């Protein structure tokens, strides 16, 4: 039974607010759950919760943050895996400017003015997504909200109900860990070898 205050016009308002977010919601759910079936269920359930709770949304405030708070809360309550899966990156091995230093050591800075663009151009969406998925959960959640939704520190803090300082710390560390994962992918897929072949003098 839908409350009378959600008749007609209110449901239309929800449509106009929610529908533009669905692609991003699905992408976010994919990286949170790392499972397509769970991601579809998470988005479906979050949309339903948003519909049921729409009367609590204060018009004129940040609907996107409101909805993604529903989605992440739903993820934490139902879909997060108790057992850690996948590769866990070690923070201790993720110094600052990791890829910058690695590409410099590989000689790429001498070969191109924009080594980051050259390396990243050869990585596809699946590889980059895989690097995000390799992050430990607390860093993966923040990184996903940051990269997919362009949320500010404050918005991410509101979505996750944590202090802004916590968001900042997790995002900065998460980005360093992500660079290590991206570099690993680039090396394994032969991208770095292709970009920095040995010359006859170096061989």
């Amino acid at each position, binding site marked *: *039974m*839908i*409350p*009378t205050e*959600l*008749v*007609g016009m*209110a*449901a*239309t308002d*929800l*449509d106009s607010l*929610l*529908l533009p977010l*669905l*692609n*991003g*919601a*699905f*992408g976010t759910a*994919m*990286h949170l759950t790392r499972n397509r079936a769970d991601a*579809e269920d998470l*988005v*479906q359930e979050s*949309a*339903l919760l948003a*519909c049921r709770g729409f009367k609590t949304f204060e018009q004129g405030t940040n609907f996107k943050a409101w909805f993604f708070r529903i989605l992440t809360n739903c993820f934490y309550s139902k879909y997060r895996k108790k057992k850690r899966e996948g590769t866990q990156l070690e923070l201790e091995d993720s110094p*600052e*400017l990791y*890829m*910058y230093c690695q*590409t410099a050591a590989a000689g790429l*800075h001498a070969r191109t003015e*924009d*080594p*980051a*663009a050259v390396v*990243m*151009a050869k*990585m*596809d*969406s699946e590889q*980059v*997504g895989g690097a*995000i998925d390799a992050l430990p959960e607390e860093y993966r959640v923040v990184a996903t909200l940051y*990269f*997919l939704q*362009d949320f*500010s*520190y404050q918005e991410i803090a509101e979505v996750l109900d944590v202090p802004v300082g916590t968001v*900042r710390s997790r*995002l*900065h560390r998460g*980005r360093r860990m*992500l*660079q290590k994962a*991206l570099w690993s992918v680039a090396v394994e897929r032969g991208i770095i070898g292709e970009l920095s072949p040995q010359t006859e003098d170096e061989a």
Partner: protein
Amino acid sequence: MHGPHRLTCEEVFVRLDDFLDRELSAEEIRLVEEHIETCAACASEHRFERQVVDSVRAKLQRIEIPAALRAGILARLASAGEEGQAS
């Protein structure tokens, strides 16, 4: 007499993450930009980090919701409106 305050490379380095996220004050952003305009090394590091962030963002934001899932959510929202009108 004190000259205008300028950031050192070390001071810019510790602010680089926040600068990438535009989470510095307007004055700090100005000071970082001023330094990057004149320091090739810091400009190179900033350009690299910015490119990685922008590239990751661009590649991750290409995913689309499955058509069937989108249709199901649309149907659920429409049903919610109809149920409300019928009651």
